[in-house]
C-alpha cells in the first residue's frame, strides 16, 4: 500500500516556534522520523510515498487545515495515512488527530500516534490512536508500534492493545467491583490510615499535567496584550449560543471601535454564578475600559482587537485544555505577547 506520513514543521526540519505558521506542504518519500517508519513499513511490503507537513499553529487553529493536509496526502496517492508521533505536544496532537480522522472519514485507513494525555486523543476517532509515550525519547518504540498498527490496518483489520492502541478506558477509568466492606467501614479505615501517615486512596486525584510557564515579556509598553475571559460574556442575545455550562465551544468577538463593554450590548450567559452585577457593567468581567486607557497612555503597546470567550462552568478538563491550546495558537499567530484571562 502507498502510505503518506504527516508530521509537523519541527520534525520536517523546517524550524521551531518561529515556523509554527508554515502552510501545509508535501515532499516525496520519508522525512526525519519517517525514515525509520518507512523501513519498518517496507518490511511489511508497504511504501512510504510522501510526507506532508505543516506548522503547528496553522494546523491546530486553521479550520481548513486538516482538509488541506488531506488533499495533499490524496494527491500523493495515499492509500493509508499515518500521523505523528506527537507525544505530549498539544497542537501537534490535535493536528494529527484531525488529519487522521479526516482521512478515515474519507475512506483512507488512518492512525495518529500521541500520548494518551494529549488533548488530541478525543478527536482521533474514527481513525486509530496509537500510544507514542509522552516525549521524543520514545521515538523508536513509537515508530515500531505505528508500523505494526499500520500493517494491521492495511490488511483491513483492527489494531489493538498489542499495537499500542489507546483504548476507550484511560488509566483513571473506574470499573465496578464488589467491595467486602461498606463505604462507612472503608472511610474509617482510610481515615485511620491517613492519621498513621498513609496515603491510601480509593479515588486517585486527577493529574493536570505540568504547564511550563511562558517566559516573561521584557516590557509591557512594547507588548500586544489580549484580554480573555471564561465568564461567558457574549454579545447581547448570545447569537452563537455559547453554552452556560459544560461548554464545548469558544468564540471570538471584536473589540475594535469600543472603549468600554457597554451594559445592554453584552451579557454573561454563565450558569455558575449570578450575572446581575456583571451585566450591569460588563467591564467587571472583561476590563476593556481600563485596558483601552492603558493602550492610549502607552502602558501597553496595543490591545489585541478581539476577545476570546468560553464558559468555565463544569467544563471538561480535556475540553478546557483543548481551548487553551487553540487560544494560545491563535494569539501567537496574531502576534500577541501577553494575555490576561479573567476567571469566574
Amino acid at each position, binding site marked *: 500500500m502507498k502510505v503518506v506520513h504527516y508530521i509537523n514543521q519541527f520534525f520536517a526540519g523546517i524550524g521551531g516556534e518561529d515556523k509554527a505558521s508554515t502552510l501545509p506542504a508535501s515532499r516525496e518519500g520519508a522525512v526525519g522520523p519517517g525514515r525509520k517508519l518507512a523501513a519498518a513499513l517496507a518490511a511489511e511490503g508497504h511504501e512510504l510515498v510522501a510526507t506532508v507537513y505543516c506548522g503547528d499553529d496553522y494546523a491546530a487553529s486553521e479550520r481548513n487545515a486538516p482538509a488541506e493536509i488531506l488533499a495533499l496526502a490524496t494527491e500523493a496517492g495515499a492509500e493509508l495515512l499515518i500521523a505523528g508521533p506527537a507525544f505530549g505536544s498539544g497542537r501537534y496532537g490535535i493536528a494529527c488527530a484531525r488529519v487522521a480522522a479526516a482521512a478515515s472519514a474519507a475512506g483512507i485507513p488512518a492512525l495518529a500516534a500521541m500520548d494518551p494525555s494529549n488533548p488530541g486523543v478525543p478527536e482521533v476517532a474514527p481513525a486509530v490512536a496509537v500510544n507514542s509515550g509522552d516525549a521524543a525519547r520514545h521515538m523508536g518504540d513509537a515508530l515500531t508500534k505505528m508500523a505494526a498498527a499500520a500493517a494491521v490496518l492495511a490488511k483491513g483489520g483492527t489494531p489493538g492493545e498489542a499495537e499500542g492502541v489507546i483504548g476507550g478506558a484511560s488509566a483513571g477509568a473506574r470499573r465496578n467491583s464488589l467491595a467486602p466492606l461498606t463505604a462507612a467501614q472503608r472511610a474509617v479505615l482510610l481515615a485511620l490510615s491517613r492519621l498513621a501517615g498513609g496515603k491510601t486512596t480509593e479515588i486517585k486525584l486527577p493529574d*493536570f*499535567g*505540568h*504547564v511550563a*510557564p*511562558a*517566559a*516573561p*515579556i*521584557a*516590557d*509591557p509598553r512594547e*507588548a500586544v*496584550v489580549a484580554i480573555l*475571559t471564561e*465568564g461567558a460574556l457574549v454579545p447581547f442575545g448570545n447569537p452563537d449560543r455559547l453554552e452556560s455550562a459544560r461548554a464545548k465551544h469558544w468564540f471570538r468577538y471584536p473589540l475594535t471601535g469600543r472603549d468600554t463593554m457597554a451594559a445592554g450590548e453584552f451579557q454573561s450567559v454563565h450558569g455558575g*454564578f*449570578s*450575572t*446581575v*452585577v*456583571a451585566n*450591569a*457593567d460588563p*467591564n*467587571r*468581567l*472583561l*476590563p476593556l*475600559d*481600563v*485596558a483601552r*486607557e*492603558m493602550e492610549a497612555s502607552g*502602558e*501597553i503597546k496595543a490591545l489585541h482587537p478581539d476577545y476570546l470567550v468560553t464558559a468555565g462552568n463544569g467544563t471538561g478538563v480535556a475540553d478546557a485544555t483543548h481551548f487553551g491550546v487553540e487560544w494560545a495558537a491563535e494569539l501567537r499567530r496574531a502576534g500577541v505577547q*501577553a*494575555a*490576561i484571562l*479573567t*476567571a*469566574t
Partner: protein
Amino acid sequence: MNLVPIAARVGAPRIVPTRGIPFPAGDPSLDPEAERAWRRRLLETALVAVSTEVHKPTIFDPMLVAPAPA
C-alpha cells in the same frame, strides 16, 4: 479569592487574586470611580505578573504589587 487555590492546583503560572467570582475585574461595593481605580490596579498587577519570570504557580497580590494610588 477562593478560585486562587484551584488556579494554582491546575498549574496557572501567574495568578492575580481579585474580590469575587461574579466580578473578577471589578468590585460593586465601591463607587464607580474607586471601582475603576481598583480595576486599573488589577491590570497593572497583571502586567507586572506577565513581566516576571516564574517557575511554578505564583500569586501576585494587587495590594502589594501595583503602585499605590496617587
